[in-house]
């Protein structure tokens, strides 16, 4: 059910709202709604009797934009790599790209999993062969849990396809790239996600 239907008696039939209904849904006063209409932030028109009517879709679109704006954050990227030098190269490369990303680097899967539980990243880049919790375990766990379905997972490994298959393979929905780390490809991937986020925020 649409969240707008919860407005109850003030909601008119179909896709049309009174200014009172729009105000209640937006959590603002009727005056604010009228100002928003004047500024062109909400599509509205007048009835023959002079009453304002607001498009339900316009209100929903405004609320979506508000939520995205409030929740806007740089693309969160986690990198799990046990090689100190490669972690330094990751940090250097990401910094040089000057993209709106928040990158956190982890030496092993344990530390990363703890942080993923606290705040899931948008993108996880992981090696496979690592001490303690390896990349196989991390990818399988995340892909088996609905809460982490939205995370884009990229595995970057020095293992061959045959070696990965021998270890039981990777779950569906995981990108596999081979080392040496293809940084130009990674940059393109991250840029595409950043651009997608910008587009979605503008809709």
């Amino acid at each position, binding site marked *: 059910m649409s969240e707008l239907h919860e407005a109850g008696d003030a909601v008119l039939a179909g896709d049309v709202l009174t200014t009172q209904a729009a105000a209640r849904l937006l959590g603002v006063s009727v005056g604010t709604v009228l100002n928003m209409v004047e500024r062109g932030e909400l599509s509205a028109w007048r009835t023959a009797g002079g009453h304002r009517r607001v498009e339900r879709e316009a209100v929903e679109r405004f609320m979506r934009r508000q939520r995205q704006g409030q929740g806007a954050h740089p693309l969160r990227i986690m990198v799990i790599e046990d090689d*100190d*030098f490669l972690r330094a190269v990751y940090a250097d490369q990401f910094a040089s790209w000057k993209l709106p990303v928040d990158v956190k680097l982890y030496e092993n899967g344990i530390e990363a999993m703890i942080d993923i539980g606290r705040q899931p990243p948008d993108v996880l880049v992981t090696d496979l062969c690592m001490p303690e919790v390896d990349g196989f375990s991390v990818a399988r766990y995340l892909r088996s849990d609905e809460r982490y379905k939205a995370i884009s997972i990229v595995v970057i490994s020095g293992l061959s396809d045959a070696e990965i298959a021998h270890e039981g393979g990777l779950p569906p929905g995981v990108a596999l790239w081979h080392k040496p780390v293809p940084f130009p490809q990674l940059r393109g991937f991250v840029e595409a996600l950043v651009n997608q986020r910008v587009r979605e925020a503008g809709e």
Partner: protein
Amino acid sequence: MNRLIFDHTAFRRLADGDARRTARLVDVFKSSMRSSLDQLAAAAANRDLGALRAVGHRIKSGPAWIGALGLCEIGQQIEDAASGRMSGPEADLPALVGRAEASFRAAVAEMDEALKSFEDAAQGRNAP
């Protein structure tokens, strides 16, 4: 025996030719690889094939980014030898660990020289 020890093109590309960033990464590389080579030596002394395989795997790809291709090749050989995928005289793990040490020293000498030329070039650009 690995013929190509150091790839200068990869080294120049490492940090887009930025001398300061490159120097910082060289420092991390030296310290990280020193630690890996010490782990290899200990694993070889203890005949710890699991550790040799793991460290060999780790050093077979990272050094490529800084141009130390010889180390990558030896890392692969150590991983293969410790996994039983390579046999015969070439699979002599203590010898391979010794070669890794020598290849590291050679790569460090190359990158120190390359870094110096970076810095000289940067100073030349900044000279009045």
